[in-house]
């Protein structure tokens, strides 16, 4: 049996980027088609992964391991659990859509754009299956490079400011993570994540390490108050960059929390759960209000991403609270599952929202809400998708946006009704900022004459939006397959929460 599937998933898009790059700007169509073929093959490989992975068996599966840097015992080791599989499939799915989405839109050096996208995809997949901490770190850092390029070259007018803010912000966080990893290495003599998880640590050590990891991952998620790089990065990023950033890259932060904070510093995590929960609720309420008053569509959706990612961190840390304070593993599992489902769902919903904004931007070259109004008059099919994704963003049942939030709110209530009260506030504020946006962009009579000239979405755009819509609806109507895929892994994570290291 072929047992290098994970390596294939990482290296196929990375290596595939080379011929795309070589196609050069002289043959843009060759580059586009090559990129698409690579992306499709990667999706096919991820579907094979879905088939090969045994959800009920649990544990880390399909592992590969090679010695990488012998003197420090660094391994190139990969393995996946249900959560990784779900994230990988989401990544490859979104990977195709950003390539199709950029098809004619990127006219300036499309080969480089496509290559950067593929490379980014491969590195992201790598992050989701690395089981060696240094490998994880290397990939975690490496994904910054293609994103930096995507924003820096194809970005908007203030791209230099945005890329540097983005880069230094995240880089600042990773330094803390590196220090923590080095400390752990010095104690355990290995970067193997499973060994690190089993490493006994005092509360003092755990506290330091917890905060080092928290800073690194909180910036990535991003959590309040280290979120201000995100709106700027989104505003300047090209559509595809925004889609990948929101859909996949933010998940790297919460994924890191699962892989590092949960197993390595469970006691510190439980002790400081209130802090993360508090910040998550601030994300829902405070950021909700901030999103309400944004005048730039992309900023609005960027802030909405911060609010929605708040549910992921809330779900993860509510599980701490439930397990440690009440021993309520059933509800903890519900909260954790909610966080996981929210990660996947947010990938589709935010990706779709940014795609929609890209469609509008391509026509009017403005992201200002006030320049629009009455778009439905000229683009009814686009309006259908826009309303659908807006509803998903507002957490309407039947769309994926509801499932995770519902689970997290249910679990929160068991931990503390007040937490649920603030979390459920998203029902009101989330609908307010999203539907007010829809009202100002889509509904109404046309006031800007340029809107009257906007063309209905073409076949390519329709394909992308249909794909997103299918994912959003499928998850909303029948989340059980996804839940089942991750269930054993989630329950194992929850069991780990109960283990005291001190």
């Amino acid at each position: 049996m072929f047992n290098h599937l994970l390596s294939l998933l990482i290296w196929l898009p990375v290596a595939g980027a080379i011929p795309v790059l070589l196609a050069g700007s002289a043959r843009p169509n060759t580059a586009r088609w090559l990129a698409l073929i690579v992306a499709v093959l990667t999706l096919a490989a991820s579907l094979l992964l879905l088939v090969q992975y045994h959800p009920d068996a649990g544990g880390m599966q399909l592992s590969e391991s090679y010695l990488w840097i012998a003197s420090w015992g660094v391994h190139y080791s990969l393995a996946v659990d249900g959560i990784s599989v779900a994230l990988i499939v989401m990544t490859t799915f979104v990977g195709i859509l950003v390539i199709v989405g950029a098809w004619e839109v990127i006219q300036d050096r499309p080969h480089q754009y496509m290559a950067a996208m593929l490379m980014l995809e491969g590195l992201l997949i790598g992050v989701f299956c690395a089981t060696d901490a240094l490998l994880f770190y290397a990939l975690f850092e490496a994904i910054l490079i293609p994103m930096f390029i995507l924003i820096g070259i194809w970005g908007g007018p203030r791209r230099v400011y945005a890329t540097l803010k983005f880069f230094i912000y995240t880089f600042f966080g990773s330094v803390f993570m590196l220090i923590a990893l080095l400390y752990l290495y010095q104690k355990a003599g290995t970067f193997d994540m499973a060994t690190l998880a089993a490493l006994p640590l005092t509360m003092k050590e755990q506290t330091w390490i917890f905060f080092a990891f928290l800073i690194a991952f909180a910036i990535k998620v991003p959590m309040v108050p280290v979120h201000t790089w995100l709106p700027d990065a989104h505003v300047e990023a090209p559509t595809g960059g925004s889609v990948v950033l929101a859909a996949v890259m933010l998940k790297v932060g919460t994924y890191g929390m699962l892989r590092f904070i949960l197993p390595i510093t469970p006691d510190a995590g439980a002790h400081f759960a209130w802090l993360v929960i508090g910040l998550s609720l601030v994300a829902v309420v405070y950021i909700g209000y901030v999103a309400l008053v944004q005048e730039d569509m992309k900023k609005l959706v960027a802030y909405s991403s911060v609010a929605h990612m708040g549910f992921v961190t809330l779900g993860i840390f509510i599980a701490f609270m439930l397990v440690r304070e009440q021993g309520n593993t059933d509800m903890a599992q519900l909260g954790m599952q909610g966080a996981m489902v929210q990660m996947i769902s947010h990938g589709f919903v935010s990706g779709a929202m940014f795609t929609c904004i890209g469609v509008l931007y391509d026509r009017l070259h403005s992201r200002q809400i006030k320049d629009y109004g009455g778009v439905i008059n000229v683009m009814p099919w686009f309006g259908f998708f826009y309303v659908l994704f807006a509803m998903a963003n507002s957490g309407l049942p039947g769309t994926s946006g509801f499932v995770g939030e519902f689970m997290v709110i249910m679990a929160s209530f068991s931990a503390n009704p007040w937490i649920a009260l603030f979390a459920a506030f998203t029902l009101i504020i989330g609908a307010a900022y999203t539907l007010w946006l829809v009202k100002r962009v889509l509904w109404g009579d046309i006031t800007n004459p340029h809107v009257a000239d906007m063309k209905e979405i073409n076949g390519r755009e329709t394909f992308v939006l249909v794909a997103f819509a299918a994912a959003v609806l499928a998850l909303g109507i029948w989340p059980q397959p996804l839940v089942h895929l991750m269930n054993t892994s989630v329950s194992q994570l929850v069991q780990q929460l109960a283990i005291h290291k001190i």
Partner: protein
Amino acid sequence: MELSTSVLLTIALAPLLGCLLAGFLGRFLGRAGSHSVTILGVAISCALSFYVLYQLMLGGATTYNQNIYTWFQIGPLNASVGFLVDRLTAMMLVVVSFVSLLVHLYTVGYMHDDPGYERFFSYISLFTFSMFMLVMSNNFVQLFFGWEAVGLVSYLLIGFWYKKPSAIFANLKAFLVNRVGDFGFLLGIAAVLYFLHTLDYATAFDAAPGLVGKTLQITAGTHWDAATVICICLFIGAMGKSAQVPLHVWLPDSMEGPTPISALIHAATMVTAGIFMVARMSPLFELSQSALSFVLVIGATTALFTGMIGIVQNDIKRVIAYSTLSQLGYMTVALGVSAYSGAVYHLMTHAFFKALLFLGAGSVIIAMHHEQDMRYMGGLRKYMPITWITMWIGSLALCGVPFFSGFYSKDAIIEAVGLSHRWGAHYAYFCVMAGALVTGLYTFRQMYLTFHGEERFTVRENHGHGHHDDHDDHGHHQPGVLAHAPKESPWVVTVPLVLLAIPSLLIGFFTVGPMLFGDWFGKAIHVNEANNVLAELGQEFHGSLAMALKGFTQLPFLLVLAAFAINTYIYLFNPAMAGKIKSALKPLWTVLDRKYWVDDVYFAVFARGGVMLGRGFWKMGDTAVIDGAMVNGSVSMIHRIAATLRRLQSGYLYHYAFAMILGLILLLGGYWLMGSGFVGSTLVGQ
């Protein structure tokens, strides 16, 4: 015998299929094709709903309660999509599908010239599907799905004419106010899950008695009764959906939508979802006297005070909208005194007569070329006799005139409140009694202004007769000037009116015995013996004829009679009187005309206040504190670096180079630090 799953699935899915066909293939199907598939879908559902009702009543079918598929399963917690079909559900199915079918038919006439014809049919079929999912649910998750899905369709339909600024304001307002209710509702569901460990109705209701004595800690030292918390939270959901004070503000504005949906969604079905939900949850509500008192007071306040606003409205649809609010208040009052069957019974009769009134109003609006202001109507009875007669039937039913269907349901509610000893029942009794007078005042005023008295419009007959588009003078018309004389609406409009007039007139007489005083709902509705005011009332019940005859001597009827006399005098004999009364009662009139300033306060506090708060957060929090103070150093540093780099670089390559150099420094630095063992020891300083 058990009901067949495929029949129930067909009921739910037939309208969905119609919706998808009309929505996505409307362009290919054309207008006739679109209305045919949707009408067919709903007709199938309607026929099968009657079949299900028949099976449950006479066919010996037992309650159906089965899951269709697992939505998610996490540990022991199962969330499924499934159906619970008992007589309560079956009654709702019949009401929803019957009214929906007639509204579909009516729409063929009403929306005849609208460019969004196919889209409209798609929406109302989607609504019908959503409503079926809501009433057929056997668990809280699916209930919430249906609950929000009908809200979505309501949003889409209120804003159907999306070019109208008032319509897109109203639909956003409706959705957000409903979300406030749903916020409470979701917390209620969370409380159910927390205390009863299930999302399934049957399991939850079986476990419900165990709630007694349980409390929820709110703060250290404050504990609230579990059942009360659950029920009040769930009821907040009902307050949103069924537009109870103080979440009533969206319903009058929802009249911006086309009239058929005002009839279907904002009168007959969706707004009664809250009533249905509380009745369905009766095993929970029966556990909390406090929650029921809360329900009672909210309902009574809604019944009286919103009805009063209806007296000063001039828009024919708005009068009916306020009447709907008031009638929903009556149903809520019934819930509050544990007369759940009474509430659901009034829900049913109200669905018929209120749909009739709205569709009648729509018929008038067509005749008046989309003029809705009653000040420009009058004397229409001779132009449109079918609309006139059927609307009188609806109006008399609404006022609770004996023998009409509304009498049986409304009178029972008033008497049940009189018998109740629950806290708040005295206040509620006053409200529902005074409400009877108020109902009479606005209803007869509306009928007289519309159909009787002088014609307050003129017909501009010199307008070209060659083309016959009724919408010709849309938007730029002069009030009270019509292009053509009003005429009776086509059969697709009048047939639904007649078909609704029949149950409005008769259904109470034939069903009051079993449905209200018999044990018709069986186990679907649970009432504790001590609270059972309807059973007490039932002991005095000696048939519908006797009840109606007695009704003529009761106070509610006398109040309606008084209202009739006042209106008759004013509008038929002394039209100047209306203005005199208005100026004499100017302060009161202003209070009602301003709708108690509730909308103004909400807009100032929540809409403007929310935006101001958001701006404050954004400018102060994100911009000033986080980016300004916290990231200040780094930001200015970034600027300096950027400026330097801008001078150094000559192409885009610097991006790559910069990233690479940083990476290299990092790796080298990392290895060096690790080699020296420096990091760990200084970090924690063992």
